[in-house]
């Protein structure tokens, strides 16, 4: 199967490969796929308190199209608000990279990775806020 030029370009010069600190409260990590299926994507987004994606890093185990899809979305999400990033669809990814039908699942995975990373970030934030609310209570001395 021949690859589109854009897939080759993203594969050979992948953008934003790397790792962000997953303990950072502003970092959401999405890990989607399964090694047994031949692809696994990890997308990490650093999101500011006002909900803008400031940085994105990915690592992907998978074929060239999976790597290219990850690289592409890591570029696309940067500078977008969380709401905007959520609207990126696999169709847009597949169209941009001219993925053939057998590779559509790679674009689906990339869309899922964005959603999973944002969800992780939101859950982290919700937990933090909940802790912030319960925290003072924990400090009230126990009744004798």
């Amino acid at each position, binding site marked *: 199967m021949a*690859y589109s030029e854009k897939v*080759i370009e993203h*594969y050979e010069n*992948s953008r934003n*490969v790397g*790792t962000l600190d997953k303990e950072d409260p502003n970092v959401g990590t999405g*890990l*989607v*796929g*399964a*090694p*047994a*299926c*031949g*692809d*696994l*994507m*990890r997308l990490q987004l650093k999101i500011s308190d006002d909900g803008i994606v400031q940085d994105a890093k*990915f*690592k*992907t*185990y*998978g*074929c*060239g*199209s*999976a*790597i290219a899809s990850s690289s592409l979305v890591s570029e696309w999400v940067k500078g977008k608000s969380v709401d905007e990033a959520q609207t990126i669809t696999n169709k847009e990814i597949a169209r941009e990279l001219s993925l053939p039908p*057998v590779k559509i*699942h790679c674009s*689906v*995975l990339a869309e*899922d990775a964005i959603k999973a990373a944002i969800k992780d970030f939101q859950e982290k934030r919700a937990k933090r806020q909940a802790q912030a609310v319960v925290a003072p209570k924990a400090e009230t001395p126990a009744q004798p």
Partner: protein
Amino acid sequence: MKLPIFMDYHSTTPMDPRVLEAMKPYFVEEFGNAASRNHKFGWTAEAAVEKARKQLAALIGASEKEIVFTSGATESNNLAIKGVVEFYKDKGDHIITMTTEHKAVLDTCKRLERQRLDRIDELKLQRLMELTGRDVTPDELATLEIKHGLENDALLKRWIDKVRVGARVTYLSPKKDGLIDLDALRAAITDKTVLVSVMLANNEIGVVQPVAEIGAICREKGVLFHTDAVQGVGKIPFDVETAKADLVSITAHKMYGPKGVGALYVRRKPRVRIAALIDGGGHERGMRSGTLNVAGIVGFGAAAEIARAELGAEGQRISGLRDRLWAGLSKNLDLLTVNGSLEHRLPGNLNVSFAYVEGEAVMMAIKDVAVSSGSACTSASLEPSYVLRALGVDEDMAHSSIRFGLGRFSTAEEVDFVIDLVTRAVKKLRDMSPLYEMAKEGIDLKSIAWTAH
């Protein structure tokens, strides 16, 4: 060194220039039909075919009378298996093969199984019509079969005993190293078994089966032995007497001959019979009708003669290159596994899993080198190699596999180039692999519940 480099000699081989030279006269000048018995054009063509038949027979220790030319090994496998099942249908209907066979064997067996089951379904419908006194549709079969206790229906049982279409098939699993379990083979043979079909060498992992032992067991039990010898003939010593083989499939394009021509060896002593698949003018002693591909057959013969003369030295040279490739890769990279026995293996084969990187991604990174992968991504299906899965290789490791195939025109320079290229590709891909990072952090990847899709 010329790019791209061909390291996929299991898929096909370039034609040896000497083979092309031998073929050349048989397109324009000597174009006769080998079946024309009444003029010089025909005689010349026939003589050329008969010479090739001898050359091929000599390579496998057969007599030229035992060679049937076909269009390739897919046809030879079909002819051997379907031909035996059809011809010996009164003797039995059971075939034994392996899960690691080529699709030309497996899908042939599947069709025979299907045919038998379809026939049995027809009989069940017929029986149910009798029992219900009305018309019965296939949709009702399962329900009515239970309701009317067909399982214990004596009459139906007698009918089924008389079924003479298709076959029952046992698919033996290989051991972890890809080799056949001879005890399992012995145990699988029944009084209904007519054929054992086990390949000489596997096209993915290059594992060479102990055909002499298999042949001996078959001979002892009075069962015919077919071997798909495509990947082994001309590469490793093989002869039909040592293997006690009754039927052998060969193809020219895997041994530096042309595509579209193959052969089936059919033993004469003791005589093995097969029913033809293709009927017509009665060529090839009635076993395969159709005007012979004279030029192709001449090329096949020339390729066989070259192989016979050079096989020993060539095998040594190529296995030297293969060992060099493996030594280089395993020196530069960790976490590699060779799939299948290294010891019982074709000289030119190396099938390696590069843990934590995906095969197609590796191939894309080394696009100046033609290799092949067991990754699902290289096929239309999403299943990784069934051969590797049959060996018990984990799915992720099957996705990570690359098959290197070396051959007559491979050089040490090419091997060194490939070692370097693959090393860099795998390192780069591991740097971007979340699995590699997790494994290095000591996370047990098997313990994770992945979100399979």
